[in-house]
């Protein structure tokens, strides 16, 4: 436990000090890593902790991005309203979608989540007048928060860092709460949980909503990061990438997926300088990880070096 806190502090300090050491380019890259780390952690809640394998999680990421993007572009640059709406819309959609997706299990769940995300992609792609269609919506400016303009690389980085830190804190409480532990129980044995008296559906529903909420937050950060939103945000490719991040890093560990996100973003950035075939490499990594390391980096590390947890006296 102390070791984990120690590592956390060091990492935290490093992250805080980064703008002093990193060039603008690498700082931007680190910002992107943090955004996807948040996205991956949101999926981990659903997949890693609750055991619900969603192939369409990017639906909420994209909804957050489009909502905030559209409001910023077409309505006004009021930070709080745009951000709150960007969180509210994916959450509201999740309230409805989850009623459907939770009617399905296992393989059907995979299909229905992918299908729902793809439907949203189709709408974003086809509804040119509203969403800009295939071209998307460029020219989305970063907001000003309490007098601080977030247009600069460094202020935006700190903004993302604070949001990431806050979400990490919230998520870590959730996964260690009674509800969070019940989610793990549901993942391990739904039947056992039911027969113990847990309303399994209710827990899965809450997990679905929370996962959507945090994914939406990541989407908001990303649209401000890029200054642009397009149908690609809603594509199956993105769903697939974030899923890989979770598995590569270690499903059910919260920090593992954050690590996985960092690795994938770095790899993509580095390899794309040498080849256009990044997606092929991504696919190969997918195959390799699924075959040889399904528990992911952190999953394997935890087994080798168990941190253990003692019950309070």
């Amino acid at each position, binding site marked *: 436990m102390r070791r984990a806190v120690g590592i956390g502090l060091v990492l935290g300090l490093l992250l805080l000090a980064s703008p002093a050491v990193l060039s603008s380019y690498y700082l931007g890259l680190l910002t992107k890593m943090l955004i996807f780390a948040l996205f991956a952690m949101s999926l981990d809640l659903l997949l890693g902790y609750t055991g619900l394998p969603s192939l369409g999680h990017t639906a909420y990421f994209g909804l957050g991005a489009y909502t905030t993007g559209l409001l910023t572009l077409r309505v006004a640059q009021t930070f709080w309203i745009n951000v709150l709406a960007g969180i509210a819309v994916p959450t509201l959609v999740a309230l409805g979608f989850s009623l459907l997706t939770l*009617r*399905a299990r296992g393989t059907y769940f995979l299909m229905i989540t992918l299908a729902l995300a793809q439907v949203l992609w*189709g709408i974003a792609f086809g509804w040119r007048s509203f969403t800009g269609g295939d071209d998307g919506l460029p020219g989305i400016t970063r907001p000003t928060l309490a007098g601080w303009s977030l247009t600069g690389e460094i202020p935006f980085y700190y903004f993302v860092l604070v949001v990431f830190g806050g979400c990490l804190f919230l998520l870590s409480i959730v996964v260690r709460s009674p509800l969070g532990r019940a989610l793990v129980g549901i993942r391990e044995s739904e039947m056992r949980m039911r027969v113990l008296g847990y309303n399994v559906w209710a827990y899965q529903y809450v997990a679905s909503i929370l996962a959507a909420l945090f994914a939406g937050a990541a989407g908001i950060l990303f649209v401000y990061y890029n200054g642009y939103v397009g149908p690609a945000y809603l594509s*199956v490719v993105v769903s697939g990438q974030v*899923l890989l991040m979770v598995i590569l890093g270690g499903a059910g560990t919260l920090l593992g997926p954050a690590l996985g996100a960092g690795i994938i973003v770095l790899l993509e950035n580095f390899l794309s300088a040498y080849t*256009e*075939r990044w997606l092929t490499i991504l*696919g190969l990594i*997918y195959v390799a990880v699924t075959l040889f390391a399904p528990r992911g980096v952190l999953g394997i590390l935890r087994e080798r070096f168990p941190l253990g947890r003692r019950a309070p006296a």
Partner: protein
Amino acid sequence: MTFWIIQTMNGISFGMLLFLLAAGLSLIFGLMKVLNLAHGSFYLLGGYLGLTILRLTDSFLLALVGGALGVVVVAVLVERTVLRRIYGEELRQALLTFGFVFIIADQTLWIWGGNPQTLPKPAGFQASIRLGEIVFPSYRLLIIAVGVVMGLALWWLQEKTRLGAMIRAGVDDEEMARGIGVNTPLLFTAVFALGAFMAAFGGVMGSALLGVYPGADFEVLLLAFVVVIIGGLGSLKGAFVGGLLVGLIDNFGKALVPQLAYFTVFAPMAAILAVRPTGLFGKA
């Protein structure tokens, strides 16, 4: 009146394509409990391979057979080298096939480029024919005919042949089937290959109708999913009925309310999930 008849026949012909895809998906899942996420990719690859073969040989038949067999080779390679190592773990297998989605999508983009292309229709089916007042593309009629023939062939295979009996035994109880001497690894490979064959076959035929382009794999995968969600995974009848339903709904949707496009397939899917989550003919 003519409008309705033409749209219905359009819907049915598209539905037959969907049936081919969904049947392959269902077949693979029914026996192996694997959700082949690369199914749309097999369609895409089949279409592209068929395109190249057609350009080289000028024979649609060769393109059809060659394209389908080419994908079968890929599928067998995938199944034998990687997929069979993790049998029994459904989610892992589904994710493994997902990796191949990326690989195939990217490789086809690299080899054939990003521009949408169309397969020329086979000679003899390029024109429309008159049926009373209605003028209808003969190629679409061909698709309907092929779909029905394939459907019958599959049904016959499943119900009347030894292979079909082995498949049904394997679906019911894999260990038992192995116990009575069914070579399950070989059976699995054969079924995976058959499913891939149907996807690729559909890919060649579909590419002549709708063109082949990056992203078609996902669009087709979505529709195949909608069909099996509605019809029920693991059921041939479900794939047929679901395919027709989705083909008709999608077609009428596009014809009557084009702005809503994807929404029209979303609604029946949502309805089925609300009422009967395992689909019309699905097993639980």
